[in-house]
């Protein structure tokens, strides 16, 4: 039963387009799904290694831009009259490159920022995201700046010999996001239950102890950063090809905050946490938009964030597990060791 439950959830999600035909709600499901994938990637860093990366939206945005530019093609003149011309490639190549380039940035940022911890780590990651946002805003030749990249091609799906179909519709995109989400969740689940995952949890609980038993902390942190950034890049790529327009606003700090709220509400360091938190915060705007202006919605968001930290600091999923006495994931629900 315990093994089947996640697949029953997937099945339940997969049935949504069968009974839900309202395009607005389906759209909300797709964007929520994309943000859940991003939140899952953040959870790997925040929940399993304990590093609060507040620049996570940078990887999401880099994935989106890299993927969009690969499929649109580009023609940029670099410093010194060096010209880079790139012909449009198929969208799936964009997706792969989006993941890879975001992962490379994850490596670089990890390499630099894991030299510091705590508040300083947070500040470095935010600074990185802001620098990337300003580059996206000002390097008009590459990104069109505030004019946005438009007419990004949608994902195509096809088999050799049978032809290709463009995924314009919402239902197709829904299944695409669901599929990518399931794959990402499997990757994270495998990873966190492996040796690597145990090393990550060990260094979260007590870094100096982890070092003393021979865990190469920086190596595992950077590994987590690379995988996390890659998955965030995948989410960004989905976002770019679904909306088919992106502008430098994808790098907004508030998107990182949204991911963080999703993770801590659901329960950081649990596999189900980002999904539960993501569903809650993905659908609050849907419910709230009937009676609240965007400002009021954000005020609600902020107040809820404070409330959750005060009332349910561990998040919803660990609270429910405690309620029912279930502990399916021992590595993640260890009681924190008080020094």
């Amino acid at each position, binding site marked *: 039963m315990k093994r089947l439950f996640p697949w029953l959830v997937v099945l339940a999600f997969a049935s949504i387009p069968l009974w839900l035909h309202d395009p607005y709600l389906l759209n909300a499901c797709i964007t929520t799904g994309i943000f859940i994938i991003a939140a899952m990637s953040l959870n790997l860093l925040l929940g399993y290694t304990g590093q609060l990366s507040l620049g996570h939206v940078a990887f999401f945005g880099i994935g989106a831009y890299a993927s969009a530019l690969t499929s649109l093609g580009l023609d940029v003149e670099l410093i010194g009259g060096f010209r880079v011309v790139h012909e449009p490639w198929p969208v799936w190549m964009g997706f792969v490159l989006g993941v890879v380039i975001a992962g490379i940035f994850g490596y670089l940022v990890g390499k630099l920022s894991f030299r510091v911890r705590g508040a300083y780590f947070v500040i470095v990651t*935010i600074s990185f995201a802001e620098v990337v946002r300003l580059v996206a805003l000002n390097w008009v030749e590459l990104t069109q700046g505030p004019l946005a990249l438009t007419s990004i091609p949608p994902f195509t799906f096809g088999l050799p010999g049978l032809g290709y179909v463009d995924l314009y519709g919402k239902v197709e995109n829904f299944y695409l996001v669901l599929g990518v989400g399931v794959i990402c969740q499997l990757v994270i689940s495998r990873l966190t239950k492996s040796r690597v995952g145990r090393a990550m949890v060990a260094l979260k609980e007590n870094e100096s102890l982890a070092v003393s038993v021979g865990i190469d902390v920086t190596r595992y942190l950077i590994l987590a950063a690379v995988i996390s950034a890659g998955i965030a890049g995948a989410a960004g790529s989905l976002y770019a090809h679904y909306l088919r327009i992106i502008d430098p606003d994808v790098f907004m700090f508030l998107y990182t905050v949204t991911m963080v709220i999703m993770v801590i509400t659901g329960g950081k360091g649990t596999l189900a946490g980002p999904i539960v938190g993501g569903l809650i915060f993905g659908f609050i705007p849907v419910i709230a938009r009937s009676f609240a202006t965007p400002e009021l919605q954000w005020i609600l968001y902020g107040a809820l964030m404070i409330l959750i930290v005060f009332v349910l600091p561990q998040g919803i999923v660990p609270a429910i597990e405690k309620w029912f006495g279930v502990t399916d994931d021992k590595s993640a629900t260890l009681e924190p060791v008080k020094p």
Partner: protein
Amino acid sequence: MDQFLQHIVNMFILGGTYALLGIGLTLIFGIMRVVNFAHGELYTFGAYFVYLASALLGMNFFVSLVIAIVFGCALGAAIEFILLRPIRSADIDTTMLVMIGAMIVMQNTEQYVWGGVAKSVNTPFGESALVLGPISVSWLRIFVFVAALALIAGSYLLINRTKLGKAMRATFQDRDTASLMGVNIQFIYMATFALGSSLAAAAGALLGPVYVISPQMGNLASLKAFAIVILGGLGSIGGATIGGFILAFAEEIGAGYISSGYRDAMGFLIIILVLMFKPTGLFARAERIG
């Protein structure tokens, strides 16, 4: 050359208010170990209080500056009492999340109350300017610079010459020992947050009339204040003052000679570079306050 001189003059005006922001944050972060994401919102509130008092209620400009600082102080004390006191023993990430929540609530409250249209404040200085050869500086900007310097000097004296300041320095060095020596830690924390908040409000109140006042003006202020703190070293008022001027200089030069679009990137590049190469800050004499 003329252009360069003009940038230097602008640097002094901007740097004074940046220093105020940085000092407020360095006190809060140094003494309380709280990453105050709402710092920029206190700055915005300071600017709106001036607008409210002088433009809407018709009060004297100088009186409304004082009102803004007093209200900033009260708001800071309230935030400390409601949000930070109940989670005093929580780790730094938890308080950070709470302050991010507070930032979102405050910024959107400003947006809700005042709307998205930027406001401007008329000052008794009008458009008159001091012209020195090729450069010209409006009297308002000179006043802002002088007032900022006065506030910096005031907070320096408060920390180094008063009993409250002594208790703050003691708490910064060793909270538990200070507590054993009879320092009321709860009060010191509240006073620190209130003082830091009133300095941020003062920075907003002074800089708001120079530019325009909008709900988003505080967006980057918290992070810029952090750049200043990281530059100057934790808990150092002198370091924060110099850090404020360095950041202003980097922004002016960056905006003037590289591209105005990258003005705001300067602070972030400084953060990244300093933390990579000299994480203790440029002016830290060990971890000391004053």
